[in-house]
């Protein structure tokens, strides 16, 4: 028998792909790194996933779980010739209205979940810009964010339980429907682990009540400093908006050419703020935001008059990356976080880096969280350009780390930032993370080479465990 034959015994012929063109498609996600998919499997049940893991282990073939492949950090590509397990066919949704939760398959598309729960008065709060394509399984793997994570937190706060197929092919439930499940919070560490600790086959997610009212404000400023001061000022006044997004002038101009969202193209920076809640509350909060914006010399100040204007503004924001395609054939999008108070300083340095390397840089980001998304638009056909882009990207990350920031706010580490982990963690910190991984998957059969740089596990640190210890 071969792995292909055994997988076809489990899944049937059609749910195992092995042709070169098919494999080529699944060798990439939305990032810039290409992997080597030897085989692609499409399970429909937990039992099938468990069987796939066991047989792949038998053949010592690395396993990479994958949703829609919208990730930008290369988290879903096989770095070694491997088996890609695509979970998009596992897309059941079971809503529990009384508990405001839903059991969902990993393949459910983020926006579809909110559409299905809308008639029940709920939505799934994490809303990445890719929400019309990305899957809940991928959101959980990357602990995805989105504009509305400012007030609601990232995906981890919205996942109560996960059913996990372990590296041994066992099925285990982590977490549960009641608050504070007893024992170590393994659910919390599996979220964001990018498929290295197991394959999620089902998740219990928390749904958020749809707000009774909403106000969306568009403000424009003559300088990035004024916009950033407005962000700080709003928070200092005790208002944590549902979303607080910033775009620089290059980005608003690109977006306006693309979708005509109504952004002021003469402003150096545009802020999009949204507040939700009872009508009286959102009125008051919108008034505070307006006041702070005026104090900081806002040149444009507009409250979306109705749902269609609001939808248009959000379409503009979420189309930003699509809009860039008009500026250049390729783009490289970064995802770093800095303390909110370091936004202006960081952005000034980020523009300097791009200018020095002769790269066009546009910025659109989650200002309230300090989550930057500098985007470099370029043409990879141009001689030496990709190397310049990569060099600029590294400098940019170093700047963010220097001011006390993190490598990634919502896209994950994957392969792209793996070797940068040493910028933020020392040997003992990385070793501790490697020990967590080792406890789940000692052979590194699941998504090998991701997140942690080679050699993270230092066997000369600390003491070896006692043999057979179980206190």
């Amino acid at each position, binding site marked *: 028998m071969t792995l292909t034959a055994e997988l076809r015994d489990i899944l049937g012929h059609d749910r195992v792909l092995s042709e070169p063109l098919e494999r080529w498609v699944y060798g990439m996600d939305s990032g810039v790194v290409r992997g080597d998919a030897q085989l692609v499997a499409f399970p429909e049940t937990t039992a099938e996933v468990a069987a796939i893991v066991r047989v792949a282990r038998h053949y010592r073939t690395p396993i990479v779980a994958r949703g829609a492949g919208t990730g930008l950090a290369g988290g879903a590509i096989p770095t070694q010739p491997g088996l890609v397990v695509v979970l998009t066919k596992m897309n059941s949704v079971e809503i529990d209205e009384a508990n405001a939760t839903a059991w969902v398959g990993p393949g459910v598309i983020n926006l579809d979940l909110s559409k299905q729960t809308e008639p029940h008065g709920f939505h799934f709060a994490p809303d990445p810009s890719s929400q019309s394509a990305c899957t809940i399984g991928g959101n959980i793997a990357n602990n995805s964010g989105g504009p509305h994570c400012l007030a609601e937190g990232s995906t*981890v706060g919205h996942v109560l339980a996960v059913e996990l197929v372990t590296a041994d092919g066992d099925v285990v439930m982590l977490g549960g429907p009641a608050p504070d499940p007893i024992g170590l919070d393994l659910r919390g560490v599996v979220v964001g682990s990018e498929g290295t600790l197991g394959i999620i086959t089902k998740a219990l997610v928390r749904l958020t009540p749809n707000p009774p009212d909403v106000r969306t404000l568009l403000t424009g400023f003559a300088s990035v400093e004024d916009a950033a001061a407005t962000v700080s000022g709003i928070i200092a006044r005790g208002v944590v908006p549902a979303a607080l997004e910033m775009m620089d002038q290059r980005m608003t101009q690109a977006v306006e050419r693309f979708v005509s969202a109504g952004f002021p193209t003469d402003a150096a920076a545009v802020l999009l703020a949204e507040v939700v809640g009872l009508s009286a509350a959102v009125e008051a909060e919108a008034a505070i935001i307006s006041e702070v914006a005026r104090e900081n010399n806002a040149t444009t100040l507009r409250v979306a008059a109705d749902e269609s204007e609001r939808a248009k503004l959000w379409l503009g924001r979420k189309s930003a990356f699509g809009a860039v395609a008009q500026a250049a054939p390729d783009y490289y999008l970064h995802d770093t976080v800095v303390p909110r108070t370091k936004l202006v300083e960081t952005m000034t340095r980020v523009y300097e880096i791009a200018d020095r390397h002769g790269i066009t840089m546009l910025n659109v980001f989650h200002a309230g969280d300090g989550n930057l998304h500098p985007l470099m638009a370029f043409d990879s056909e141009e001689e030496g350009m990709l190397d310049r882009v990569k060099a600029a990207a590294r400098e940019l990350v170093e700047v963010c780390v220097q001011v006390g920031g993190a490598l990634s706010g919502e896209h994950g580490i994957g392969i792209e930032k793996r070797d940068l982990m040493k910028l933020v963690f020392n040997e003992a910190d990385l070793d501790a993370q490697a020990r967590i991984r080792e*406890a789940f998957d000692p052979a590194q059969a699941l998504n090998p080479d991701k*997140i942690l740089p080679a050699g993270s596990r230092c066997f000369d640190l600390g003491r070896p465990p006692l043999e057979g210890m179980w206190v």
Partner: protein
Amino acid sequence: MTSVRSALDGLPAQSSPVDGAPEADVTVAPSSFDEVGAILDTASEHHLRTLIWGGGTHQGYGGRLDPVVVLSTAGLDRVVDFQPEDLTVTVEAGVRVSDLEDLLAGHNLTAALPETPGNASVGGVVSAGISGWRRARYGPTRERLLEVNLVTGDGRQVRGGGRVVKNVTGFDLPRLATGSFGSLGVIVQVCLKLWPLPSARGCVTVADGDAALAAAYRPQAVIECDGTTRVYLGGTPEEVEGQSAALGADPVEGWDWPEDPAGEVQWSLRVPPALLRTAIKEVRGKYSYQAALGVGELRMAGDEGDVSALRTWAESVGGALVLVDGPPGLYERIDPWGTPPPSLSIQNRIVQRFDPVRILNPGRLPGGL
């Protein structure tokens, strides 16, 4: 290899015994991470069971300990980095929750930690994974933990997470440490995400708590105490007015949080939120109780009664009945946690890798870990 006695004598930062802590051969109160590391390295070498002690308010959870060393975090009491504009604060583990919240309140901020903390330390609350009532609005304490510094059982100093409000840089050690009851290491420092303290605060007593939960649109908390239900409101004055109007009542100004239910034996009953009404019917009249509507936790206190049927039911619906505090003899008759979780073998493998000799609070976690 030195003898155990001379190892104990050689431990740094020795102090007098801590009030309320069980008897031990030595009490230490380190004031630096290096001291904690040196103590745990020696304790691991000589297999010295070590009990970690913060404010002593959550020591009733889990299995009983017969420690050789008591490690008090009282000497780790510094506010390390307070960034009001970034909504973050970094503190050492021994800082009292009440002191921290006082400091934050001076800047109109809160960490939304337990509202009636008593003597609790920040490290103790994080280690026990305890949340305040306002989790109904802001989520549990584990949602607040941005960064953690641990000294592992064998004395390694480890940091996870970072001091920014949004972060997916590597495995989530802060969340794993929250509620770990010291099994991975001594939590020596944490960075917490903060929230603005609402400018207006009020309380409304209502007849139907379940209806109020929906009508008030995300109140700070809805608590039913022995049949009386109060809705805790907060936000801009307009928000509190709007919420009160939706509830059809005028609020009493301010928040008056309930003290823990009185009784010799204290339990935490945890069920899916929609089943809390069923849980209340079960315990009403038999125990003094406080139920967090919309959350699914019910704190109850009373005499040593037979809780086996209640625990069986709670576990059958995906919850638990956890012993929070009680007389020592009770722990010999009943497992304080109940049925251990199905992931016990993975949990054991993680604990082994952080506390290889298993000296820190051994046996405190579910399943005797």
